[in-house]
């Protein structure tokens, strides 16, 4: 497979930045634009770039889990945080917030909505991984032939 040096180097650079951006969006989403879904989409786009680069297997290999694990974890987190409030006697999807004083950072506000958002984030990432893996199964390495040529 002919690989483009420019594309590969750009993706390596962009991937890390995009993952940091997606984490920022996940946490910023409580009061600003962003949130679990948008953050997950950014992370998904970054992973899709790695897929285009041809080393999706490396990504999945490094984190050592099946692509559906984040899907299950995310669904459990999101559904769990929406129902656990019922056990304490309030409405489903109700949320709580608490401020902690973390040394060196200052006051950090932790909300259960962030846990819910983290669940959504995991679901989106898991879904992207599953879709890409399904595509990857279909693609055979095109060792010979010009780019864009259809193998017969």
């Amino acid at each position, binding site marked *: 497979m002919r690989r483009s040096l420019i594309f590969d180097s750009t993706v390596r650079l962009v991937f890390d930045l995009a993952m940091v951006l997606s984490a920022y969006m996940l946490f910023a989403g409580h009061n600003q634009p962003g949130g679990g879904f948008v953050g997950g989409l950014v992370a998904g786009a970054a992973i899709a770039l790695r897929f285009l680069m041809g080393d999706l297997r490396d990504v999945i290999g490094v984190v050592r889990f099946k692509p*559906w694990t984040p899907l*299950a974890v995310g669904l*459990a987190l999101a*559904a769990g945080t929406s*129902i656990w409030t019922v056990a304490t006697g309030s*409405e*489903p*999807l109700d949320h709580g917030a608490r401020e902690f004083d973390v040394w060196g950072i200052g006051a950090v506000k932790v909300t259960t909505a962030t846990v819910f958002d983290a669940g959504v984030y995991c679901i989106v990432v898991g879904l992207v991984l599953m879709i890409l893996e399904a595509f990857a199964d279909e693609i055979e390495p095109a060792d010979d032939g010009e780019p864009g040529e259809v193998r017969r």
Partner: protein
Amino acid sequence: MNALIGLPIILPLLGAAASIALGAHRPLQRLISIGVLATLTATTAVTLVRVDRNGITAVQVGGWEAPTGISLVADRLSVVLLLTALVTLFAVLVYAVGQGSFDQPGSEARHVGFHPLYLILTAGVSFAFLTGDLFNLFVAFEVMLMASYALLTLGGRADQVRSGMTYVVISLIASTLFLAALAYVYAATGTVNMADLHDKIAALPAGLRSSLAVLLIVVFGIKAAIFPLFFWLPDSYPTAPTAITAVFAGLLTKIGVYTMIRTQTVMFTPATRPGTLLLVVAGATMVVGVLGAVAQNEIKRLLSFHIVSQIGYMVMGLGLFTVAGVAGAIIFTVHQILVKTSLFLVGGIIEEKAGTGRLARLGGLARTEPLLAVLFLLPALSLAGIPPLSGFVGKLALVDAGLDDRAYVVVGVSLVVSLLTLYSMTKIWAGAFWGTRSEGASDLPPAKGTTGTAIMTSATAALVSVTVAIAVFAGPLHELSTRAAADLVDPTPYIEAVLGR
């Protein structure tokens, strides 16, 4: 106890999460799915008793008050239909586990995704029944559709994907229209809470009001497969594994009917409801559906056309917009969900045992499979409306309501269609159960997998006995539906419960 209302939506999602994580252990997946559905059936039965006793219960999700936040509303209509749906989903799940022992592409045993998807479908169905908010109704439909796209094509066969495509395209069109309708509603009134919409839509100009009503009828009419929007149904359902077809045929179209009943009554004031339009559509749906059914020669396709025909009866009850009419529509919907699902399940067992669903190649099952013959005959006669079965109860309520309202034409049409229904049911009966096995059938493999068929047969028998129970408890059920219908024809209690006035 309001906690129980959100449970049918969230518990299946938690179950799905666990089921995905346990993908490699099929027995554990089965245990989770059966556990979740059994729990929900029990809690929903409790909710039904409570709602019937204490009146409509609304839960404001996240503690945000009604027109701003999202409301989950349990009234008699939604809980009765939710309970029916959960019983059906439960029976079909057990059936699917039994069928899993057969080597069929896309069946429960062959694919890790079956149980998670089935649970997500359950969550979507519950959400559609419980939400009191038009936008979340859209979300519920999407949850249901996502799961159903995957379930329809789980086997990955070419014909499944082809008919799956029809289903996806038609559902996308319906969803787009729904979203457009939502945008219009929101632009005109500034709210999507159905209780809040009742007064706000009444204040709109008449032309705008009726366009919104008709747009919503078109959207839900596609889901419910009413005339002339039914064309997609007979092509997309019959190719999936039987259990899936049974759920889709029995349940998903009826959710379209439920949303039609819900939106047309709660959102619109009595003077602005499109009664005549619905009655005309109802009559046409009955006739076209049954004529399509008479022309078919294959069990699942014949039953698929019947779905269309029977939807007409429910729309007729709604179109009358009287307490008796809507009550009839509710009884008929409950009866249809159970009866239609059982018929598809019996059709599946026939295909499993005889190796084909083509009537020309079947025959003599009444002698070889007497139990199966009984399991087919009861829902088939019920579908045609023979007393004392559940279909008779539903049709009697509808005809009675129609005569009260002097809607003689549609009542006449519904009676003629009943006769044609009976004719097409006897066609299956004569083709599959009487006579002798035709030429070419003898080389097919004989019945196999006795444990599997035993599970399938008992799940079907359980569902059939529920339909018989409906006929036995017709009196209390009719009273319950009348109370439910009274809250719909004059939705003041619903609005008070949701908006907390």
